[in-house]
């Protein structure tokens, strides 16, 4: 009973959804202000979600309807689970198990896979093109992402999330060291790609490929996909705060502001430029950061 | 020597009329059977650039204008042909010499009904694919006009 409450209400689905909608509104309002516009009112993400629920759901005739309709549910379940684990670690650092960091990494990796599955099952050639882009991008950014997480693990000699938070509270946050700063910068760049934001949103490009991975989705499945993206916008700054700042609440907002700034000042890059960037620059710097962390800097 | 003297020398007797509208605009009238050789002269030997072709349905026949441009001086030289047979208008295609003329000849065929002999791909370009046969909208007094409802 308590597990169900934690999964659905707090800190699970309802809490993450509402917090995600607030973060998404902050993102849209700041973007609008940077462009000297007004921007939408505060309940706009909620209006969008409710409006998508009342539209009819169309499944294309050439689509595999089981995978097409189950892929969004898979994505949102794993994101909710990751959120539950992260918030339990912040609130009650002793209550989790060894290796929960690895579980969170795996759960965050389910979203791109579910998106690719759903797009490939829809039977649309544009969606398969966008799914191939998402696949290539995922293979490019996942390795620097894991290496930058490894820096925290190496410096604190632990792999439990709770102990990562407690050790940082006692011995100083990871960002105090040179390898910590480098790892944080790499982490920030890879989560732009993970969240599907400019400059790495070529899988969901609106103007270029007419909606990309979500081209055939409409109604309730599209609402679930959009809600998943909004929840990721909340969870991933929390993850960054746990790893690099020791669970500090103000740092969540700081990471969000950095993400919004990068989003508003860059154009979209091509897929081959993105792959070259991640495999060449990011990987070398993240390996260098791991080596520095092992030495002790 | 400048371009207009060049053209007069190369074409020789094929020119029916040479008109200089203003210092940068020349109209050269030739007969329809000479169009392939004339286009080759202008495009290959004199290295002029083909701009576009225009067709119109006149009372005494179909008139096609081929516009060529000399980019160095800004002159435009136009070849004018008059196809007098209005029942079965035909002319040689120049798309074998100038690849860029393919589509404009398709457009002239589907809207005016001029047959271009030797054209590789004479299909509909602007009108829909199941347009009725022999219905050429830009001819005088024809076209599938919509009845007022």
């Amino acid at each position, binding site marked *: 009973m308590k597990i169900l409450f934690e999964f659905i209400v707090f800190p699970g689905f309802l809490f993450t959804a509402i917090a995600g909608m607030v973060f998404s509104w902050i993102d*849209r309002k700041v973007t*609008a202000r940077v*462009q*000297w*516009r*007004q*921007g*939408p*009112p505060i309940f*706009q993400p909620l*209006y*969008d979600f*409710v*409006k998508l629920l*009342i*539209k*009819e*759901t*169309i499944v294309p005739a050439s689509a595999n309807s089981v995978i097409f309709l189950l892929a969004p549910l898979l994505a949102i379940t794993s994101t909710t689970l990751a959120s539950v684990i992260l918030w339990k670690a912040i609130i009650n650092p002793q209550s989790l198990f060894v290796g929960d960091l690895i579980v969170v990494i795996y759960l965050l990796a389910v979203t791109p896979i579910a998106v690719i599955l759903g797009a490939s099952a829809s039977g649309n050639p544009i969606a398969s093109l966008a799914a191939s882009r998402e696949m290539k991008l995922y293979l490019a950014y996942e390795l620097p992402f894991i290496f930058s997480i490894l820096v925290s693990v190496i410096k604190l000699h632990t792999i439990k999330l709770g102990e990562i938070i407690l050790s940082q509270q006692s011995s100083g946050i990871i960002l105090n060291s040179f390898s910590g700063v480098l790892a944080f910068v790499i982490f920030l760049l890879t989560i732009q790609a993970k969240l599907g934001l400019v400059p790495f949103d070529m899988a969901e*490009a*609106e*103007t270029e*490929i*007419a*909606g*990309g991975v*979500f*081209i*055939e*989705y*409409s*109604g309730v499945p*599209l609402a679930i996909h959009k809600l998943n993206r909004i929840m990721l916008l909340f969870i991933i700054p929390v993850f960054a705060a746990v790893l690099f700042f020791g669970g500090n609440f103000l740092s969540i907002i700081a990471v969000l502001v950095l993400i919004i700034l990068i989003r508003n000042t860059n154009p979209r890059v091509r897929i081959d430029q993105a792959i070259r960037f991640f495999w060449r620059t990011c990987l070398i710097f993240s390996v260098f950061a791991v080596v520095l962390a092992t030495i002790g800097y | 020597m400048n371009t207009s003297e060049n053209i007069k020398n190369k074409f020789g007797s094929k020119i029916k009329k040479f008109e200089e509208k203003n210092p940068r605009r020349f109209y050269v009238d030739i007969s329809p059977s000479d169009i392939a050789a004339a286009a080759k002269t202008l495009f290959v030997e004199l290295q002029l650039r083909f701009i576009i072709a225009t067709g119109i349905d006149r009372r005494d026949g179909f008139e096609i204008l081929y516009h060529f441009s000399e980019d160095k001086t800004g002159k435009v030289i136009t070849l004018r042909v008059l196809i007098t047979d209005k029942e079965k208008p035909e002319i040689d295609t120049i798309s074998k010499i100038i690849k860029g003329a393919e589509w404009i000849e398709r457009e002239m065929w589907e809207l005016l009904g001029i047959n271009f002999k030797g054209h590789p791909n004479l299909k509909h370009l*602007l*009108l*829909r694919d199941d347009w009725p046969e022999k219905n050429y*909208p830009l001819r005088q007094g024809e*076209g*599938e*006009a*919509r009845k*007022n*409802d």
Partner: protein
Amino acid sequence: MSASLKLKALTKSIWVFHAACSPCNNCDIEILDLLTPRYDVERFGIQLVGSVRHADALLVTGAVNKKIVDRLKRLYEQAPKPCVVVAVGNCACSEIMFRDSYNTCGPLDKIIPVNAYIPGCPPKPEAMIMGIVKLIKALRGEK
């Protein structure tokens, strides 16, 4: 849920798809004007989407010609209902000078059902915003 209630919930967040039936592009430029900081329709919740399956409103510009009429009907069927259709510009509303042409198919409301007309050649962005406000009021049932 009744149809009118669904239309009411639609009015707070309208996602627009731009279906251009080979217009002269003046109306398209003015539609894109609405998204610029001077007029900013995002504060009403209006967003431009790329796929017709995400659309709540179809903005149709241009006089519909015989080559595109089948595709336009298919686009209308692909948009998930409830969906409203707005005819933007004189060419879509009534075809003005193209009405006796060999290639046109009639004004837009003889092809798909239309909810709002915004005349003008091209309509000013202020006229388009007024059209949107009147459409939202009509959907909510106010006068």
